[in-house]
């Protein structure tokens, strides 16, 4: 590699030149920052400014560039120099826009800017140009597990986009749940009548597609590897095992209907005239095949009255059945009631519900059913019992507030969706519940055979921000396996997951990170000689990217990695880092700050801010000219999970008066891009108190905050409150010892 040559560019535009002495900044970059080349420019992001940098890169052989201008989140296109290492000092949002314009403030404002230039120079010198994963693998085939509507759609979408697809279905036929239906809820205007399922056409398109290979009656024996190089053992119908090499995987394993046998109070099992929704579809198909009316199972008589019991074994607060709502079942019951009404308006159809949930265009479908004369009754069903010539449904009418009963020839229970997620890897190995579960993916990963589960057994997905994204890079969950959903949603879901799978193979082939740092060429590099085999990285990696070899050293699977840096934050001996983000790049910035002595009454507060939420919130606060204390120095971090405690001890040792950490919400309804990052940081910071005590410092000197991207006003207030608190407890006694 060419010899390092650093250059710093200081922009005077956007008012920087008017409010700050860029001369002074340039001197700092030169004398303290030891930049080989320092230039000031009136309008750096303009064509001329950018051209100047380009020329220096070409003619002066500059390899490292510091841009002291706006936030690193601004002007990323103008300041895109893919051949050099880059650092940004945030003078515009970080200083100018967040500090008061008054003349008296000018001194502190300049001090702040000076520090950011020092920090930028320090970071730059520790940064290397990321070159991409050298082990990039280029298999672009996509494996789809599951041949229902979700799986078929994912396969077809990927194939149409030009990718080879392998589809594995455990049954001997394709179609899944949809193939069992008489009709489906309509997808299109006017949302008035049940529609044909269209499943035969979909199956024909898949089986007839030259780029799709289908294995029926097949299961996965083992899945190993990483995006771009998965190797999957498939047990096929003949019993033989074939190996399929693929680049990414879509898991669309669907759901099973909740077992209505667990609902004896609702009459299931006591009389054949109580069926679940699948049972009704069966009756409807039989009727259609015979060309007549739907007949009840007990005696084959035509059904003259039918009652639909919504939420059967669902939304159960008592803990015995499903606690959640499966979302599709109200519309499904409406559709099934229409089977009767459309054939014969004289049939009485009553839907007993507590809340009718028909989101989106389902409302039109609901209205259509009302027009057709389906009766909707708000009530809570207490019991269904066999009665002479039918069933007796006892319920509480919630509008008229009375207990009533009614008789019907047939009762349909709307039971819910139970995801086919495989094994719950979080259960202990000796848990009998785990033994009963059959793995689906059979991952040869250290972290377990299937994907983590999010809630209620549904396969993981980043529920809040990024559907389909799971914690296993290159494997995407689609359809009701990741959350309850209907067919229209499953189609959309499968399409999204197919696109994600395509992105994953393309990124893996280029040695780049997948979402959320998609395109990032840096990857974790380990100095394995220093590793003490403590296993913290392998355990804490939220994405299961790190396996272990026989001697218990971590084995990084770069293309499974999301570049969150959690492993770097975890490593007690600090042997993990990225070319452009490491213990040193941040550590050097911390130490570069000019520390006023303890009599100056100028505290210094280090703020480590998550670049996904907290840092943008700070930028937006600046954009709104929300003023905050000039004593704070902000360093963006990839995730709070990447914060190594050494940074904090270093900061306190070098005389900082306090350290603020701002990350995303963690816990049940986490907002963390890296799922567990902020949670781990919180856990680690819980232990920092001991360190503080050893140093003889107050515990308030380290504070962790949950900040959302929308907390624009709040971030500025948090900083001010914290600085006030520090002034109250006094400056750090550690100053001057560093």
């Amino acid at each position, binding site marked *: 590699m060419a010899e390092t040559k650093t250059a710093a560019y200081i922009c005077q535009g956007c008012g920087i030149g008017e409010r700050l002495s860029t001369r002074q900044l340039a001197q700092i970059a030169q004398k303290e920052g030891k930049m080989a080349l320092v230039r000031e420019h009136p309008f750096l992001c303009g064509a001329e400014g950018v051209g100047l940098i380009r020329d220096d890169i070409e003619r002066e052989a500059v390899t490292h560039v510091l841009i002291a201008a706006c936030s690193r989140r601004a002007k990323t296109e103008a300041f895109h120099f893919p051949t050099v290492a880059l650092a940004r000092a945030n003078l515009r949002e970080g200083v100018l826009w967040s500090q008061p314009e008054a003349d008296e403030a000018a001194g502190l404002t300049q001090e702040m800017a000076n520090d950011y230039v020092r920090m930028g120079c320090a970071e730059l010198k520790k940064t290397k140009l990321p070159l991409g994963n050298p082990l990039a693998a280029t298999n672009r085939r996509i494996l789809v597990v599951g041949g229902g509507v979700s799986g078929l759609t994912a396969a077809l979408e990927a194939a149409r986009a030009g990718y080879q697809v392998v589809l594995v279905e455990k049954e001997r036929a394709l179609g899944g749940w949809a193939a069992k239906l008489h009709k489906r809820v309509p997808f299109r205007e006017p949302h008035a009548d049940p529609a044909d399922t269209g499943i035969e056409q979909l199956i024909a398109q898949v089986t007839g597609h030259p780029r799709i290979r289908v294995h029926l009656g097949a299961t996965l024996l083992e899945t190993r590897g990483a995006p771009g190089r998965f190797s999957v053992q498939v047990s096929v119908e003949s019993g033989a095992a074939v190996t399929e090499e693929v680049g990414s995987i879509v898991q669309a394993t669907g759901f099973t209907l909740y077992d209505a046998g667990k609902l004896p109070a609702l009459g299931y099992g006591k009389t054949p005239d109580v069926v679940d929704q699948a049972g009704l579809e069966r009756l409807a198909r039989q009727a259609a095949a015979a060309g007549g009316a739907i007949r009840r199972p007990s005696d084959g008589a035509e059904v003259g009255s039918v009652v639909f019991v919504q939420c059967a074994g669902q939304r159960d607060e008592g803990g015995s059945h499903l606690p959640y709502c499966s979302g599709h079942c109200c519309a499904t019951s409406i559709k099934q009631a229409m089977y009767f009404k459309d054939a014969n308006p004289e049939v009485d159809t009553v839907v007993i519900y507590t809340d009718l949930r028909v989101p989106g265009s389902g409302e039109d479908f609901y209205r259509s059913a009302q027009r057709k004369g389906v*009766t909707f009754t708000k009530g809570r069903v207490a019991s269904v019992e066999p009665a002479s010539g039918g069933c007796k449904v006892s319920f509480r009418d919630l509008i*008229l507030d009375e207990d*009533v009963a009614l008789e019907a020839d047939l009762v349909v229970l709307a039971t819910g969706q139970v995801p086919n997620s495989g094994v719950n890897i979080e259960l202990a190995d000796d848990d009998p519940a785990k033994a009963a579960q059959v793995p689906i993916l059979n991952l040869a990963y250290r972290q377990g055979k299937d994907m983590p589960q999010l809630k209620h057994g549904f396969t993981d997905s980043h529920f809040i921000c990024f559907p389909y994204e799971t914690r296993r890079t290159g494997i995407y969950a689609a359809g009701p396996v990741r959350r309850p959903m209907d067919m229209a949603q499953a189609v959309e879901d499968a399409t999204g997951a197919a696109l994600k799978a395509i992105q994953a193979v393309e990124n893996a082939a280029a040695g780049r990170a997948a979402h959320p740092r998609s395109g990032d060429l840096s990857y974790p590099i380990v100095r394995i000689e220093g590793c003490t085999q403590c296993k913290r990285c392998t355990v804490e990696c939220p994405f299961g990217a790190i396996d272990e070899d026989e001697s218990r050293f971590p084995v990084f699977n770069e293309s499974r990695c999301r570049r969150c840096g959690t492993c770097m934050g975890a490593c007690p001996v600090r042997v993990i880092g990225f070319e452009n983000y490491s213990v040193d790049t941040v550590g050097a910035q911390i130490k570069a700050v000019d520390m006023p002595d303890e009599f100056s009454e100028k505290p210094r507060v280090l703020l480590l801010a998550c670049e996904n939420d907290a840092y943008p919130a700070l930028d937006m606060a600046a954009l709104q000219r929300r003023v905050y204390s000039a004593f704070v120095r902000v360093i963006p971090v990839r995730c709070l999970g990447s914060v190594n405690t050494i940074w904090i001890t270093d900061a306190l040792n070098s005389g900082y008066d306090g350290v603020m950490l701002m990350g995303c919400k963690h816990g049940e309804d986490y907002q963390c891009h890296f799922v567990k990052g902020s949670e781990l940081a919180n856990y680690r910071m819980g232990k920092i108190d001991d360190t503080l005590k050893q140093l003889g410092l107050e515990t308030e000197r380290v504070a962790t905050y949950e900040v959302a991207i929308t907390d624009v006003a709040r971030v500025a207030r948090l900083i001010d409150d914290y600085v006030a608190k520090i002034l109250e407890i006094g400056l750090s006694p550690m100053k001057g010892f560093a």
Partner: protein
Amino acid sequence: MSGERYRNSFLREVEHNVEEGHWVKMCMQCGVCSGSCPFGPHWAHPPQELFMMIRAGKREEVLGSDAMWMCTSCYNCVVRCPRKLPITHIMHGLANYAHRLGLAPKNQPTRQFAKMFWDNLSKTGRVNELKLSLGLYFKDGFKQGIRNALAMKDIGLGMLKAKRLNPLELVKPHACKGAKDIHAILAKAKEIEDRRKGLSA
């Protein structure tokens, strides 16, 4: 509990016989109407409940109820109903149907007044205000009538002075020029309406 309950029979009856009755099945039981009605807490069954009772087949309770007679035609519910039910019209439709069947509560004051008003009006084609108010005062007997009239005497005298009330109307009422024609028009209208409601062939 009768097996007919919650079946569609009474709902169908309402659909066929009550003005705008075909809307009842479209109610989604949100309760916005009941919450909007100024009568809210003061009557037996607010609209939402009445519609549910119809769907539950409570024929006698609905038709014998005084609820729909209480509606003031303020139209609050109509403007708010997310399902766009013409609730006010259904209220009057139900009242009218109950009245036709003779099931409406006999001494319901709204019903009494409406009947008085109609008789008064249709006789001559003009409303005789004096007769109408006296009829109203005396509807609960002579003694109560005197009491009512005395309570209103200041207003009455004031109207007399302002020439807004002519005592002669009592003996020689005004009539429309073509009262006969009006009777013919009303008879025809009734015939059309009855036909529409399926009451006559």
